[in-house]
């Protein structure tokens, strides 16, 4: 179980690097397109279409990363004032509802993909992209998210059952203020060590 959690965590981080890389490549492509269009009145065509697919694919593959980093916002005004038992129940309920939703979304995303495959749908653009390619990658991302949610849910229940409350909390508890600040401030702190020459 623990190994599975570690693996998914590492996999999701890897997905974030790839997702970020795809977005960066997209930025380069769009920038080239704008400059060519403005300066030389040339259009490569299709840059925006590919960018749209890049957005769908990079986000669907990194929803799981945000989940592992507790970036999905939860309103914790009441949560923090509740006893531990209730909080644990809410953590499990949150993951269960999340899992239920992604199952529903996966099913309907698959229907979109299946329709495209059956009708051999092609994007109504100069590129004429066969839609099953981007939609397939997008659907696979959502399916991965669903899988990760159920791994996290199983891991939380497993740790609770083993009496490891803080371990369960670190998997699925709402992010504490301390964790949030670490995420936000980590990059900035790096630079403080870079020198204190101001002003």
């Amino acid at each position, binding site marked *: 179980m623990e190994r599975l959690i570690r693996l998914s965590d590492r996999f999701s981080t890897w997905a974030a690097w790839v997702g970020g890389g795809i977005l960066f490549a997209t930025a380069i492509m*769009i920038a080239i397109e704008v400059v060519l269009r403005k300066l030389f009145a040339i259009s490569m065509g299709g840059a925006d279409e590919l960018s749209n697919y890049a957005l769908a694919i990079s986000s669907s593959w990194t929803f799981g990363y945000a989940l592992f*980093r507790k970036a999905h916002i939860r309103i914790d005004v009441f949560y923090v004032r509740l006893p531990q038992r209730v909080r644990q129940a809410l953590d499990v309920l949150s993951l269960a509802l999340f899992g239920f939703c992604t199952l529903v979304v996966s099913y309907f995303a698959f229907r979109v993909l299946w329709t495209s495959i059956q009708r051999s749908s092609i994007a109504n653009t100069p590129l004429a992209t066969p839609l099953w390619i981007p939609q397939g990658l997008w659907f696979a991302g959502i399916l991965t998210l669903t899988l990760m949610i159920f791994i996290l849910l199983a891991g939380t229940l497993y740790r609770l059952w083993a009496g490891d409350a803080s371990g369960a909390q670190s998997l699925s508890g709402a992010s504490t203020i301390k964790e949030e600040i670490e995420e936000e401030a980590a990059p900035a702190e790096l630079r*403080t060590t870079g020198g204190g020459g101001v002003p």
Partner: protein
Amino acid sequence: MTIVVTLALLLLLLMASIPVAVAILVLGLLVGFIFSSFPLHRVMGEIFWAASTDFLLLAIPLFVLLGEILLRAGIAKRTYSALDKWLSWLPGGLMHANIGTAAMFAATSGSSVATAATISTVALPQARRYGYREGFFAGTIAAGGTLGILIPPSINLIVYGFLTNTSIPQLFMAGIVPGVLLAVVFMLVILVICLVKPNMGGARRSATWEERFSSLKDLLPVLFIFAVVIGSIYAGWATPTESAALGVIAAVLLALRYKSVNTGFVKEVMEGTMRTTAMIMLILISANYLNFVLDAVGMAELLSRFVTNLGLSPMNTLLVIIAMYVVLGLFVETLSLMVITVPIVTPVIITSGFDPVWFGILLILLIEMALITPPVGLNLYVVQGIRQKGNISEVMLGSLPFVIGIFIMIGILVVYPDLALFLAKLV
């Protein structure tokens, strides 16, 4: 009936600390099942795919990426040092440089939290060195950071534009003047407080004109990014998404010039970008589905009729809405607050005869207030987190004068809507 049940369900889900994106989606499913005779959920896949591939939404990850690169490229330090030379002779000293740097950085960053975090790391060490009251000093940073979402580019304005079908270029242009004015209001607040109670300020510092002019070159990077991003939109060369892509390239060039790029830099930029992007995208995609369901059950019409039946004048309606945001802003995280309320409130505002672009700017001011009002005000916690000593209540108290400053700005914008709209009319 529909309104009451929908609101009750939403409150229940949110209070149970269900992730906001999930709460919104569950609400969309439930409202569809209860109030519509059509199987609305059958088109869920198509709606998700459409939102996931919306070219406009691509602007959000690109602006996040732009911010992540700039955050780590060491630009804020140079800007701060230059503005220190120009502004620190005023009563209040370095605190004016805090606001000035925040305003400049806001012109390249679409996020308030990122702006506050950046300024904190550069400025907070100076508070100790020059003997400032740390609570108030930290308050100026928390408040200054909120400018990040008012002065374009702004991720929150893109979210608003997406949810209400309002022109993003117009919203961006409309944010410039109120943003600069709010920075001036903040500086006036500091000035007045330090004139009345001189012990609130620390050492004032002076610089020679030669030093000042030679420091101007350190402002160039920020102006360069702003010119690329906002200039290309204003000139009509690029859509907001395209301008964000140009901004990313410009930021990379700067980071390369400052030799900040290495493997660690790239990894952190990618991780930071995707964490924020995935969070925002999931909320927006879910919200888009909820909007579709609410449209199908005629929610906007129901609400508008409800408000019309209340018989309030447009100005009273506006005041009620402002009051609602002030109260909700105390407790609810800001992006969630926007996504949940904007689709419901904006139709009412438009029915009352207000301009959607103008309301977008007003809303951002209210969101800025929410960012520095306790108990839930993320900027306060970010600044305190980097300060790492003393008590958060000092930062809360230090930010309070700026809450009044934002109120004043809201008043100005209500009385003179053209402050926002005259630039918006040019694009």
